[in-house]
C-alpha cells in the first residue's frame, strides 16, 4: 500500500507543468525518462488495484499474457513519432499519454510481471532489446526530421541513447543467462 502512495507521488511530480515541460523539451528525456517513469509510477500504484480487485486481475490476466500485450500495445503506440508530436500539441493527447502509460501500461506490466513464465519473459526481453537496436539504427540512419517538435540532432541523440540502452540490455541478458541464479538463494546448512 505504501508503494501505491509512492507511485502516486511520483505520478503527481511528473505531471507538474514545469517538470513535464522540462522533460518534454528534450526528445530523449521525453521518450527514455518521462515515459518509463510514468510506467514505473503505474507499476507502484498497481499494488492498490491488485489488493482492491483481486478477482478482476484473476479473471482477465490469469497467465499474464493479456496484461503483457496491453502493455506492449500502449508502449509501442507511444514510440511512434507522430504520437509524441501529438502529445506535445494537443492537451487531450497529453492527458491520454499520462493516463495510458501509468494506469493501463504500468498496472498491466506489474500484474503480468510475476505471472509470466520464463519463456514468455525471455521473449519479451529479447523483443525489447531488438526494439532498442532497430530504433537506434533507424534514428541514426534517417536523414529527415521525423518529429515536428524536435530537431534532427535530438533524433540522433535518441538514436545513440537507444543503442546504449540496447547494450545495457544485452549485458544484463548475458549476466542473467550465464550466472548461476541459485547462488543468490538462501541455503540452509
Amino acid at each position, binding site marked *: 500500500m505504501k508503494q501505491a502512495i509512492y507511485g502516486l507521488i511520483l505520478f503527481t511530480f511528473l505531471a507538474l507543468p514545469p517538470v513535464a515541460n522540462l522533460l518534454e523539451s528534450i526528445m*530523449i528525456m521525453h521518450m527514455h525518462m518521462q515515459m518509463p517513469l510514468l510506467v514505473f509510477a503505474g507499476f507502484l500504484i498497481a499494488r492498490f488495484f491488485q489488493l482492491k480487485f483481486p478477482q478482476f486481475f484473476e479473471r482477465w490476466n490469469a497467465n499474464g499474457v493479456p496484461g503483457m500485450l496491453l502493455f506492449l500495445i500502449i508502449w509501442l503506440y507511444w514510440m511512434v513519432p507522430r504520437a509524441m508530436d501529438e502529445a506535445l500539441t494537443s492537451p487531450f493527447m497529453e492527458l491520454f499519454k499520462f493516463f495510458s502509460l501509468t494506469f493501463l501500461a504500468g498496472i498491466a506490466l506489474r500484474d503480468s510481471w510475476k505471472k509470466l513464465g520464463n519463456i514468455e519473459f525471455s521473449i519479451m526481453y529479447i523483443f525489447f532489446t531488438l526494439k532498442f537496436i532497430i530504433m537506434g539504427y533507424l534514428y541514426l540512419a534517417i536523414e529527415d526530421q521525423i518529429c515536428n517538435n524536435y530537431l534532427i*540532432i535530438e533524433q540522433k541523440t535518441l538514436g545513440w541513447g537507444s543503442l*546504449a540502452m540496447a*547494450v545495457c540490455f544485452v549485458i*544484463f541478458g548475458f*549476466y542473467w543467462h550465464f550466472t548461476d541464479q541459485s*547462488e543468490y538463494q*538462501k541455503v540452509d546448512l
Partner: protein
Amino acid sequence: MEQTLKETKRQNPKKLLGVNTEDAKVALSYFTVAFVSLLLGGILGLLQGLERADLIQLPSWLNYYQVLTAHGLLLLVVFTATFTIGYQFANLSHSFGGLLPKVRKLAWIGFGLMVFGVALVTVMIILNEASVLYTFYPPLAAHPLFYVGLVFVVVGIWACCFGVFINYRHWRKNHRGQVTPLLAYFAMGVFVLWFFASIGVTIEVLTLIPWSMGLVETTNVMVARTLFWWFGHTLVNIWYLVATSAWYVIVPKIIGGRHFNEKLIRLVVILIVVLNIPGGFHHQIIDPAISTSIKFLHVFMSLSIAVPSLMTAFAMFFVFERTGRKLGGKGLLGWLKKLPWGDVRFLAPMIAMISFIPGGAGGIVNTSNQLNQVVHNTMWVVGHFHVTVGMSVVLTFFGICYWLIPYLSKRQLTPKMNKIGVIQTIVWTVGMTIMAGSMHIAGLFGDPRRTSDTSYGGHEVAASWISYELIFGIGATILLVGVLIQVYAVFNMMFFAPKGETEFPVAEPEDNAAPVPLWTERWGLWIVLLLAVVAMAYVVPIVDMILNAPPGSPPIRTW
C-alpha cells in the same frame, strides 16, 4: 556446526580471520608510497602557500605552477589511491582469510605499474614539461610522456580492480547462500566504481597522447573536460566510500558498539555506486556548450548523492547515541561524554565526520547554479576541497593508520603513540580550519585560485584578500607540522614500535539483527544500472558537443 562456527567468530575472530603476512607486505608497501607522497605533497603545499602570501619567492627552476601540479597529483591522486588500495586489500584479506595468490600477484603488478607511472609523471613536472595542473585540461598540453605516465597509473589501478573482482567471485562461488563480509562488500563497491570512473579519463588521455605528439592537429576541449570530470567527480566519491567503510564498520567497534542495520549500509553502497558518475557535470556549471536545461537536470543527479550522505549521517549518530547510552550516558547529550575521545582511532574519524557537515553544505553551494557563479575558480573552491578531502577523508585515513599499520607489522599501538596521534589530529584540525576557513573567505572576495601572484599591482580590490593569504600561510605552516608528525607516526608504527598484537576492529551486527538480503550481492545488476544511468546522462551533452563541435584546439603551452 553453524552455531559453533558463529560462536568462534564472535569470541575469537583472530582464529578464523586475519591478514596473512604476504598480504600485509602488499598493504604496507602501498602505505609507504602513500606517506612518502604525503610528505612531498605537504612540503609543496606549504611552498605554494608561502609564495602566494608573498613570503617567499620560488626559484625559476621550480615555479609555482610546477609545484601546484605536483601538489595536486601527489596528494589527490597518488596519496589517496595508494592508501585506498593498501587499506582495501588489507580489509579483503582479513575478511576472506587471505588473498588468492594470483590476486596478490595482481596487486604487486599494479604496484609496479603505478610507481613507474608516478615516477614518469613527476619527472616530466620537474623538467617543466607538464605544468598543466592536476586536471590536465586541454588546450594546455604537456609532454606526451606525462600522459603516458598517467596511463600506467590507470592500468595499475585496473590490475588491482581485477584482483578484487577475481577474489570476490572466488569467495562467492565457495560460499553459496551466504553474504560477503561487510568490509569485502565495501571493497567491491570501491573497485567497481574505480573501474568505471577510470574509463572516462582513459579515453581522454588516449586522445591527448597523439594530439600532444602532433599526430593529430586539434582536440575537442569540451569532450575532454567532460570525460575528465566523469572520472574526477567519481574519484571524490570513491574516497568517500572508502571513508564510510571505516565509519560504518570500524568506528562502532572502537567505541564498543555494534554496527548499523546492514541492509541499509549496503543500500548506501549501491546508491553511491549506481548514481555517482553523472555528478561530474556539477564541475562544469560555468562551461559553455551544455544547455541550461541539461545543467538543471544534473542538479538532481548531484543532489541525489546527498541522500546516501544523509542516511550515513543519521546512521552514525544513531550508533553513537545507542552506544553512549548503553555505556551509561544520561540526558539529552550525556551519551556524547561516554565516547572515547582520547582514543585517536575514534577521535580522528569523528572529527572527519563532523567536518563533513560544513563540507557537505559547501558542496550544496557549489552545485547551485547561481552560487557557483560567485565562487567558481576562486579560493573558495580550494577551501572547500581542503575541508572535504583534506579533513573528512584524510583524517579518516590517518585514524585508520593507528590500528591497521601496527596490526599489519605485528606491533603495538602504545599509549604514547596514541597521544601523538591525538596531538596530530588536533594540529591538523586547527591548521586545516585556519587554512580552509581563510581560503573560503578570500574566495568570496574574488581571490582567484591557481594564480601565483594575486596582488594585481596593489589594486585595492586585491588588497581585500591579501591579508587572508597571510592567514593561509599560517594554516599551511601548522599543517606541515601535522604532516611531519603523521609521517613519523606511520613509519614508527611500521618499523620501530614494540612487537605485539593489535586488534583489527570489525563491528558485529546487533544480536537481533535481521538477515542480510542476498540480492544486495547482485553486482551484475548494479553495474548495468550504473551503465544505464551513465548512458542517459551523457548521451545528450556528448552528442551535442561532437555533432556541433567547434574547430577544435591545437596544443598550447603557456609556460
